[in-house]
């Protein structure tokens, strides 16, 4: 087990190092010059003024140092939690802006992931090889799972928010409220949370239900199931064994899916102007706030790595083979 964890930790550390390095490399080696972009916004500069301003910017961002020096400085700042300052949030530190948005994103993602995984797997297992259920669940599952997250969000917002006026259309809480520990604020928060949660939940549900349904069919076709049946074991018992074995790939699937799920939550937040990481990202792109954008990238990576690690731990608890043979697992 120690070897298994050691390997995982090494992969994750390496991933973080590579991701952060890419984050550092891109602005420096992409065609086009961010400083030139900033200068273009000023306009009406004399040649000397432009030169002075370019020098100022290069000095400000430390771009006038040598590359290795810039790289080391980047890591020193990163390990101190300093990701620079954001233009979009009026010069406040990037870390602060991101920390303010993270609770909203987590409040959406964690319940949506866990509930859809549970509901989808139970439903998919129930539907497999049962004609009537299979014929209804399968098409619905495929439609849901092929739906772009933002579009389902738009449809929900249009039907439930615009036409029926059940839930508020946008924002994290009402414009007439201040965050406070009151019942009124809490209910308002939940009302705003409902639609983005629903759209994330529904798309993911479809994927899990189909995945589980297909896995169960494979398991029911395999030799051990046939053998159990031949021994005269009741259907329920055979399905129970099949379900246990089909669970493992679904856990691995969750780890593989994290990237997609994160992307889904980003676009869903944009649809509902929900004040999480996705909305912050949208605004960072609109206002060309590169520090904020790069900070968000790193936070997404850290979040995904942590989630992967949690999945690994769950996998070890569920699959005894990983404890004994130190094999299997996700990455």
């Amino acid at each position, binding site marked *: 087990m120690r070897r298994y964890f050691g390997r995982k930790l090494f*992969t994750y550390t390496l991933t973080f190092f*590579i991701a952060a390095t890419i984050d550092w490399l891109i602005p420096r080696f992409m065609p086009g010059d961010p400083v030139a972009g900033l200068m273009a916004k000023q306009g009406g500069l004399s040649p000397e003024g432009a030169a002075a301003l370019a020098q100022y910017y290069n000095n400000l961002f430390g771009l006038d140092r040598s590359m290795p020096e810039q790289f080391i400085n980047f890591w020193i700042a990163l390990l101190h939690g300093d990701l620079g300052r954001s233009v979009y949030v009026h010069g406040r530190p990037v870390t602060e802006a991101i920390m303010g948005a993270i609770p909203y994103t987590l409040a959406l993602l964690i319940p949506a992931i866990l509930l859809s995984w549970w509901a989808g797997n139970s439903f998919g297992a129930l539907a497999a090889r049962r004609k009537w259920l299979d014929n209804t669940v399968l098409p619905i599952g495929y439609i849901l799972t092929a739906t772009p997250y933002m579009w*389902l969000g738009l449809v929900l917002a*249009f039907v439930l928010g*615009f036409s029926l006026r059940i839930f508020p259309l946008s924002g994290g809480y009402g414009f007439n409220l201040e965050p406070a520990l009151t019942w009124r604020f809490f209910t308002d928060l939940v009302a705003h949370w409902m639609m983005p949660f629903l759209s994330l939940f529904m798309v993911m549900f479809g994927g899990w239900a189909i995945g589980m349904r297909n896995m169960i069919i494979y398991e029911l076709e395999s030799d051990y199931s046939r053998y159990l049946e031949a021994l005269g074991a009741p259907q329920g018992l055979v399905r129970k064994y099949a379900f246990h074995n089909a669970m493992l790939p679904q856990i691995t699937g969750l780890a593989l*899916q994290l990237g997609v799920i994160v*992307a889904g939550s980003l676009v869903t937040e944009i649809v509902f102007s929900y004040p999480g990481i996705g909305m912050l990202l949208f605004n960072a792109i609109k206002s060309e706030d590169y520090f904020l954008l790069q900070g968000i990238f790193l936070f997404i990576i850290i979040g995904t*790595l942590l989630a*992967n690690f949690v999945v690994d731990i769950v996998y070890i608890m569920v699959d005894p083979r990983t404890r004994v043979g130190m094999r299997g697992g996700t990455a």
Partner: protein
Amino acid sequence: MTGTLNADTKMESVSGSPTNEPTALPAKKASGEFLYFAVRSKKFLVALGILIVLIGIGIFGPIIDATDPVAQNGIAMQPPTADPGNWFGTTYFGEDVFAQFANGLRATFFVGLLGGGLAALIGMAVGFIAGYFGGWLDEILNMVTNVFLVIPTLALLLVIASYLPSSWRGVPFEAIFIGLTSWPWAARAVRAQTFSLRTRDFVDLAKLSGRRGWKVIATEIAPNMSSYLFLTFILLFGGAILIGASLDFIGLGPHEGMTLGLMMYNAVTWAALNLGIWWWFIPPGLGIMATVGALYVMNVGLDEIFNPKLRDI
């Protein structure tokens, strides 16, 4: 990897449990048998029909109705009517929604084909090399694959796309970048399959006859998992479409031309939701959903055609 929700979980079910090895059939006999089951598979036929209609709109729509998708010359916010010039209505700026839809569909298939195709090529190359040659080459490639598997594709694309100078921001570049970043799970799947095939007798025989590694892969291993490779490509195709749409929707789409994701981005930016212009954002999402959904259903249909164990006949 967007939408690979489906892709990944399904890829596993396609590959099945590790014990489920690809079926090796003589090529001639197999193709006839596959055709026999293909014309009897409802899933395959329905999905193929939907895809043909959508591809038809993408190819011929912009030719028949040559309206410029971004020309603001209609009446603004016109709901869809029976009038043939206006069946999809117009946007907030009086642009023709059908022209945008048809051009967007074309771009969508282009992104799927180029992005998905590139990802399939890289994934297969990495998977074959790692799985067949093994050793330190496998260790290195596997590590690289695992690292890029964990990094969310969209997050990586965001940073790249935001620094691209605007003259570079077009549909082809988007497709290439998607292809370069969404291959890892395919590499892993192909590696696992290659691994299970490389110890078979017919591969040993080919090796004994003195054929080189690449030749063995091309003549013995790849043909015996061709159905599997094709299914991988279909899932990558669908995944690339969904990633492209998300990228456009976040606001990093192409500066010129029209895509389905860009239509939704514009609709949200210009408050189509608050104005109730549903005909602006319903068609693009429906187009993506129909395309990707049809691809996934086709994938399952083909899986049943290729794998006798799954046939419900």
